[in-house]
């Protein structure tokens, strides 16, 4: 077994707010192997973006630890950018509107004093399928797909072994989304970098990931191989997510409905965190927080898993 690129051990991150603290990441553990793609799916407010920020060292942990290539994240962040790249959801917001494309892509190289950045800029632009003449353009002169390609090129400039993608296609139209998804897959084949792919879109996730983690209120309620989880989910929340998603296979059928919404994150929940919406909940779920059950490389937190 190769050394994992990323090790997350019981990570916890909380935001102090009036009236208490929001435990956005509440005991998350996983490994990511080189060249592997793990998708993290969950609804808004489940803590997936906080997790990404913690891995980037942008959000301090209140407990547990995160190791990138064996080195803990935190304190001195110099050098972390060489190990972790990031692509955000909205390339409009993540690119400086006053900088030309070439400068944006060269910036990480300049900061890390990699000499002769010009060659590398050309190289990554070619790798992401951007024409060289776009180097002198500003972000507003590009299409949405091109802007997201620039963001990917910048993330790859330092050739990091790990790339975080936070909803990289959510702001894109369907035909453009397909271009970016294909690109990410090709880049991984060529460069062998690992992806942590954060998304709320299950169909996209199934296309791109090897493993998937389903996050609910700060915790991975289920994690496992992509096909196993999609075809045979064990956690009732995973089941509900899959049933809610309208797909062409369900043409003309309304999606199944999971009642309720994510509870107020300020509320301290006794027992299982999913119990307020769970169709399978029993008395035990109200008091006992389910421990992780491991089963054929799969892990889930549920007293009464879906058969």
């Amino acid at each position: 077994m190769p050394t994992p690129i990323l090790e997350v051990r019981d990570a916890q991150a909380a935001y102090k707010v009036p009236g208490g603290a929001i435990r956005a990441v509440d005991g998350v553990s996983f490994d990511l192997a080189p060249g592997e793609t793990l998708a993290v799916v969950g609804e808004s407010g489940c803590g997936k973006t906080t997790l990404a920020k913690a891995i980037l060292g942008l959000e301090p942990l209140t407990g547990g630890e995160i190791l990138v290539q064996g080195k803990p994240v935190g304190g001195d962040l110099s050098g972390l950018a060489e190990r972790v790249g990031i692509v955000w959801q909205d390339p409009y917001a993540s690119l400086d509107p006053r900088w030309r494309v070439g400068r944006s892509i060269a910036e990480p190289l300049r900061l890390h004093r990699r000499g002769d950045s010009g060659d590398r800029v050309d190289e990554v632009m070619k790798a992401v399928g951007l024409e060289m003449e776009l180097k002198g353009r500003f972000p507003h002169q590009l299409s949405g797909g091109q802007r997201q390609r620039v963001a990917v090129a910048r993330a790859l400039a330092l050739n990091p072994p790990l790339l975080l993608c936070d909803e990289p296609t959510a702001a894109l139209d369907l035909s453009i989304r397909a271009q970016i998804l294909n690109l990410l897959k090709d880049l991984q084949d060529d460069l062998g970098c690992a992806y942590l792919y954060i998304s709320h879109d299950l169909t996209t996730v199934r296309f791109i990931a090897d493993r998937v983690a389903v996050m609910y209120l700060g915790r991975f309620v289920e994690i496992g191989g992509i096909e196993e989880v999609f075809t045979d989910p064990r956690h009732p929340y995973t089941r509900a997510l899959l049933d809610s998603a309208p797909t062409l296979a369900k043409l003309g059928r309304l999606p199944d409905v999971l009642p309720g919404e994510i509870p107020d994150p300020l509320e301290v929940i006794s027992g299982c965190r999913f119990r307020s919406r769970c169709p399978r909940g029993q008395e035990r779920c109200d008091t006992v927080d389910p421990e992780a059950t491991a089963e054929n490389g799969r892990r889930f937190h549920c007293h009464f898993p879906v058969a």
Partner: protein
Amino acid sequence: MPALEIIDLRVAFGPVEVLRGVSLSVEPRETLGIVGESGCGKSMTGLAVMGLLPPGGRVSGGRIFLGDTDLLALPERKLRELRGSDIAMVFQDPFTSLNPMMRVGRQIAEALSLHQGLSRRKARRRAVEQLEAVKVPAPKSMARKFPHQLSGGQRQRVMVAMAFACHPKVLIADEPTTALDVTLQAQILVLLKELQEQQGTAVLLISHDIGVIGSVSDRIAVYYAGRVVEHGSAEAVLKTPVHPYTQGLLGALPGDTERLVSIPGRPPDFATLGAECSFAPRCAHRFEKCSIEPSLLAPAKPKTAEQRALEHDFRFVDLDNTEIPGNVIALLPEKAARKHELVPVKLLQNVLVVAMSEPADKKAANAARTAAGCRILPVMADRAAILRAITKHYGGEPPVQAEEPQDTEHTGACWLVQEPGAGARETMDD
């Protein structure tokens, strides 16, 4: 009568047309899904119907009928009366479309007292009932809350409650679930469907998400560059799309494939659109005809053997009760047959079905062929075999004996609809 009928609607900003002749209709209780990418004009359609085009935009052509009322001919005052009562709209973002300064109960009640002339007290009571109908928890206390005190799902439910408050004939839902998570999206879609069925509303559902459109629509219109490029029943459009753009969109959906089909390039700039098909620059199938933009076309019914034969001066004849002497049969113009003294089998109008024996009369047959410019078919034992032979000879699909029911409503703005395989002909031919 359709609840809403749009005929050749055009919307322009200055000299640039962004809606270029759209015709649609929705029946009561029916859901028409409009799907397309950003900037294709799908939202403009909804806003034009509501009379709420953004500044600078104007309807530059076409007509919109709500029942038999011509909306574009109405003065603003009359239109305002219809808005919110007979036509209602649900927007993508409830945060921006609800008044942040007003309690939600009052916002619903406002519409009721305005359009239905209810007293304040009655309107408030109805507002609470309305909130109950959209299944928000504790509707009474919910009515007293401000929008920011509600969760995203609750806000969208309030929007739905407002939209259905006056029992609209037509509801325009523009990306009603796009800002929502997948479990909330499912809740809202189911709620919309329930209220639609209760009230018999015609729904125009606008979304970029083909999955959403497919799960609730009866019919679908696919938009591209300000036009409808494909239209038909949801099943026909999604299962057997005819326009290359629709095919591309469906291929771009992650499924079981290793690679996604991506449509190269990007949508055209409205200002530079010419006479050619607006999708042609991105289309893998383009051929000569694409230099003219096609309107919505229905697939040409496959030609029957009889039609094909007629074009070549042959007739198909019913041979069921005919004993065919010899072993070659030809369908010849009468004159040619007589001239070559072939054995007549049957005379139909001016076409003679003749038979001759092979190979002795091969020369005669050849002579007949040359003389009449017609073909001679070998004798077949049965009618189906002759049919196959004739069709094979003239190319195309074998005609089906019992005419297949055709979805005449399924149309596509693409020349390929009437000339299947035209763009790919080079690769298909040997």
